[in-house]
Every structure is written in structure tokens, then in C-alpha cells.
């Protein structure tokens, strides 16, 4: 059964594909050790006028859904549940 399904052309799936991007960043006042080191390195490499670099995570999420609003809500839920730790991180969801 499974095998047969997998081989079927997935045309109809394409139709309802929705894609979101999520960025997860450390809250303003939380230490970002990585960003700090990246910033120092760039400065040592001669980059000038660098004020601040913060590093975060990025996710691209594709869903086989067709209701953009519901889908966005779902992505929001994922962020709360897993992708971000709201105690130290903020997140943003964008449809792309």
C-alpha cells in the first residue's frame, strides 16, 4: 500500500502547498555568545562600523495545507511548542 502511494505523482499535493519562514532570536537582553564571537571575528577581519550582530535560528516550513490562516496558526503553535523557548527567545512567522 505505502509503496504504491509513494509512487503516485504528487501533483495534487503541490496545489495546496504553503510555505512559511520562522526566525527565532534571543530576546534583547539575553546574552548571545555566538553573535558576539561572530562580531569580533568580522571586526578582526577588518569590517568597520559594525554596531551589533545577533545570531538566531531560521526554519523553512512547508505544509500540505490549503487554508493559509489555519496553517499560519499551526506554525505559530509549532513555535510555541518546540521551535522557540519563550523564556529566552522571540519568534516571527512569515508566509513566503
Amino acid at each position, binding site marked *: 500500500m505505502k509503496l504504491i502511494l509513494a509512487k503516485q505523482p504528487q501533483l495534487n499535493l503541490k496545489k495546496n502547498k504553503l510555505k512559511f519562514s520562522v526566525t527565532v532570536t534571543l*530576546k*534583547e*537582553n*539575553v*546574552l*548571545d*555568545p555566538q553573535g558576539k564571537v561572530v562580531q*569580533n571575528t568580522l571586526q578582526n577581519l577588518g569590517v568597520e562600523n559594525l554596531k551589533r550582530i545577533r545570531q538566531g535560528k531560521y526554519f523553512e516550513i512547508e505544509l500540505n495545507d490549503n487554508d493559509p490562516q489555519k496553517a499560519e496558526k499551526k506554525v505559530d503553535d509549532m513555535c510555541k511548542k518546540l521551535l522557540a523557548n519563550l*523564556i*529566552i527567545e522571540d519568534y516571527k512567522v512569515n508566509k513566503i
Partner: protein
Amino acid sequence: MKITDQVVENHGLKIEEYTNIKKILKREPNLLELGIFSAMWNEHCSYKSSRKHLKNLPTKGKHVIQGPGENAGVIDIGDDDAIVFKIESHNHPSYIEPYQGAATGVGGILRDVFTMGARPIALLNSIHFGSPDHFKTKSLLHGVVSGIGGYGNCIGIPTVAGETKFNSTYNENILVNAMAVGHAKKDKIFYSKAKGLNKSVVYVGSKTGRDGIHGASMASAEFDENSEEKKPTVQVGDPFTEKLLMEACLELMKDNSIISIQDMGAAGLTSSSVEMASKGELGIEINLDKVPCREENMTPYEMMLSESQERMLIILEDGKEKHAKEIFKKWDLDFVIIGKTTNTNKLVLKYDNIIKGEIPINALASKAPIYDRKWIKKKLTKSKVDIKKLKKIKIEEALIKILSSANHSNKTWITSQYDQMVMCDTAQKSGSDAAIIRIHGKEKAIAVSVDSSANYCKAHPKSGGKQIVCENWRNLISVGARPIAITNCLNFGNPENPEVMGEFAECLLGIKESCEFLNYPVVSGNVSFYNGTNRKNIYPTPVIGGVGLISKFKKPISHQFKKNDSNILLIGKTFGHLERSTLLEEIYLISDGQPPEINLVNEKNNGESILGIIKDNLVNSVHDVSNGGLIIALAEMCMGSIYGAKINKPKKLTNLLKYFFGEDQGRYILEIDKGNLEKVEKILKNNNIFYENIGSTQKDYFEIQGELKINIKELYKINNQWYNNY
């Protein structure tokens, strides 16, 4: 700002305590000063509920160089070598953010050790989670384990031992205790006591941010509405910076530049400066304009109470500033002179050329409150289990059930996430009774182990306290190390609850009794109260971290069977104590019985004799008998070996469940070559030790005559599945 009762309460202080503060100051404190009082007078820093009881612990001995009262304890291990070690809790932060909470816990305890001039050589941890079925447990387990590994692996100190337990008592309050062990030269130990006037007070390490300001007691109502957002109570660890800080400090410690040094742990700049001044009976003046800040517009209040990690305070000898600064520059770290020592006996804080706060040091230290909290004695439960009335179970079935349970499964899933080998001196890794770390470049080694037994302590705190010290001692003995000293992390519930306070007081009495008898002093430790929520307190969970010495280290002794057809001796008497046992808990879900008793005389005698037998090279392997009793201990000796065991049916005790699953204390199993049997028996007899010859090793099978026969590879599989399926 006006200091209202609400503000006082938000700072975690009682109104009576506030009245007392006003009396000491002879005026009202300002908000900065109040914040400082609240940081110094809280339970964590002041030990106000525990101090009275901690005082009774034995802390001296011929090996003790420094007992409790410094950043870590120091013991003498011969020649010019000293071992520096301590354990500390990071329970609450780890529940909120398991990765960072656990990681910063490791970072914090490492600083305590290298502050004293020791290079850390080993990390250990004791972690307790709620029931595996609880919805948070899995992610907490994953987070904590990777946090501990993340920090230790990065900084490059091997994590070599620990313990992991699950019990629903920790559902809402996990325990994360981290222990660090370091090696120093005996005449190069650094202390926190300030000395001399007008000496430079230097800030080194990371910049100060708004991390963890005041944790729980933060005065949230008094700041603007988005201040809550701004002030995360969980810090992010930066093991990379800590590595630099460690190397820089150790480099500076090579000469005589440092008068005193103290890490900024809980209550950051406040407690470190107060501690140095208080011990040196001096004053300290800090110019807050100089404090390196990570964020803009930080207030004096925030600077003094920030718990940003990876920072240290150093008092330097005159004229050493330039030399010291160069070292920290080499390691890309901040180095700023932020103040000086004074003769005022006051903490004076300047900002913008104005004195923002001025508090007598003794008001923060010696005059901090001490409570003799009410406590009640725990009655020993009378409930007895009639084994004959329980549903019958086959020995084999019970064995398999226990070996495949969360608490008794092989922990490789955890330990393979820790670098155990870095530094190339780990002679025995986790998975054994105790880890063995060779002293770099020397012939000697130390053994380390952490242990706890909340179950026994809950049943009867005094016996539990007594027991856990002995179990820890046994673990060190089993690898051939002479136990030298311990550190302890006392995880308890709310001390304002007389029952909890009773658990605390009685546990300590038990710990004291064992330590005294075994000549096993306490050289450092940490108390963590208020573990629990909604009036549900956790089981009393004292964690003991022990260090032992192997003076001539030739080869590690482990518990896996080594040879075919050698004799298996059981040392110590088996009465068959099944109350409060693993068998009842795992198979019958009964856990309200009495804990087993400790006989300290036998304990000591058995341990000392076995140490001698190991030294004389008369054993192939040694294992202590602990949770789960004889059968589990034997199974553990088979798993991971190619040899199993053939065990005779006991001659005297007829109830097999009692014999094989009973948790009588003070017992060990020895594997002895046939040719050595006579010699060993003679030693045991001479020392008046009860022992039984219970069988011999054989290839491939674990067998109890007439009861069970299992392939040891099968046993290994059974024991290794839980974590991988969880």
C-alpha cells in the same frame, strides 16, 4: 522610590527582616541597598535556615586543607598535590530552561574550583527527573543532558560520573546538581579573603548584562511594565568564554599577583565583593561607572544584582595591574579596575561621582539572619509487607522487569553525550562504581562518585542520611580507592514546613554519624531549599559526592567479571530486607516501608578489608551491592563482560526473593581466582567478616541453579533498551 511593604515582599524579605535592616542601618535603605540586602539575606546566600544544622557536620581530618567556607573544599593527596572539589545545585533554572539551566550549573561549579587555583580535571552530576510518563520529563531529560554535555565538552573537562533517577516526586521540580573536581599544588591555593588597604579590585571576564537579576524575588511591580520582558531570569552559558577565563586565571595564578579571588556566582558582584571584604574584615569601594556592561543604560541596581555568568573579582598586589591586564588581553577578556579595598568596613557604591549606596559589611554577612526553624521528628513507619501475600512472581521475570526499568537501565545513552576522555587521564569512565582519574603525569589517581537515595531518606531521614554516605564510601572502595572526603548537595523542600525541616535536620544527623565513624569529613557543599510546588515538597534528596585516593595506580578495578571459573564471594550478611526495596517498588508499586539499617562497624570493617584485598592484588573484580540487591549486582557484573556466573541456591535463607532482592547494606561481591581463594578467606576470617562463597564465573550465561539461566548478551540487550525506546 518609596519602599513599601510590597516592595520588601517582592524582594523576598520578611517585614521583620526589613525592620531589622532599618535598625542595623539606623535609617531606611534605598532601593539599591534593599536589593543588596535581599541578595545577601536570602536563603541561597545566607544559609539562614540550614546553618545551625550544618555546623554539626564533621569537617576536619588529617587530609583536609580547607573545609566548608570557601569556594570549594581542598584535600591533601600527598606530595605537593591537592584536590579541590564541590557540588552545587541548579534546580530551578533547569526546570525553566533545561539546556541553559544545566549548562550554567556546570559553568558555575567549575568557577568555584578554578577560583581556588585548581585546574578542573573531572565533572560529575546528579540529575533527578519526574516520572517518565509525565509530559515534561522527556524534554527535560534531553535538555539537561545536552546542557551538561554542551558545557563540559566545550570547555574540555571530562564528565566522568553521575547518577540519573526518575520519580514522580520531581514532576514539578527536577534536580540538577553538578560537581567539579580540580587538581592544584598544595602551596598554590587561592582564597577569597581580602588583605591589605587600597588594593585594586579588578573585574575580569564577560560583560554584565541584565541576566537573572534577582531571580524569583525581583521587584517586578516597581519597574515599568515591560521590565519583566527585559529581565530574563535564566542565563545563557558561554563555555567558550569560561574556557578563556579559566586559562587566563590559571596563567595569572602562576606567580604572586593575586591576593584574593572570588567568582561572581549567585548575587554576582554583590556577594563576591561582600564575601571578600567580610572575610578580610575590610571595606570595599566600587566605582560602578567602570563595570563593563553589555547593555545600555544599566542602573547600579542592575549591575549589583546581575547574575551574568563567566565573571570574576580579583584583588591584586600593588603594581601587578599591568602584568595581569596583559594576560587577560591575550585571552580577549575584559579586565577593569573597578574599585579598591578600604578600612571603612563598608561596601560603598559610587556612580556618576555620587555615593549610591553604603552598607556596613557585617550587616550583610555576620548580621544576616539565622533561624532555628521548627522541626519535627519523623516516625519510622510500622508498615510491614507480608511477602507471602503478594502475587507470586518468577525471579527471572522480576529481574528482567527491573533491568529494563527507567531507573535501572544502562545509562550509555546519557554518558556517550559527554566527552569522558578529554585530558587523557580518565582511567575508568562512567558506568562503573566510581570513575578513576589519574593525576596528570603522576603515579596516583583519584576515584570519584556521586550518590543519593531519596527513597530511603523519605522513609527515615536519619537512616537515609547515614546510608547514602556509606553507599558513596562503598563505591570508592570498590575501585580500590581510600575514601578521603565528601561534598554534599542538600536538596529539600520548603524549610518553613516543620516536616521538611525535620527531614533536613535528621538527614544531617545521619550524614554526620556516618562521616564521623568512617572518618570521611565534609569539606564543601550546598543547600537547595524550596524544591517543590503547591505545597508538595520533593522527597528529601541529599546528594553525596565523594573523593578517594589510589596512591599507587597500576590498573583500574572494575565490576565486570574478568575470568572464567573464578570464585564469587559475597561479603557481608544477607538478612533479606525487602521493605522499601527496588523489588517492591518496581514490581508491586509498594514504597512505604522502612529503609535497611546501617551497621557502621561492619561497614567500616568490610570496606577496609576489601581495600586491603584489592591492594594485595587478590581480586579480579569488585562490585558493591546496592539497589535491587544481590541479583542486580550480579547481573551488572555479567553485562558488558563475556563471562557470566553460576550461582548456587542459598543454603540458609529459604525465601529466594528475600535472598536475591533484599537490600541489606554493607555488602560487596568479589571475583577471586581459585588460586587466591585461600588467602582471601584467611584475611576475611582474620578480620571477622561474614562472607559466603556463592558460586563461580562461567562463559556466556547468568545462572541461578534451578531458577534461571539467561544469556548475558540477552541481559545486556534488556538493560540497554529503555533510553533508546523512550
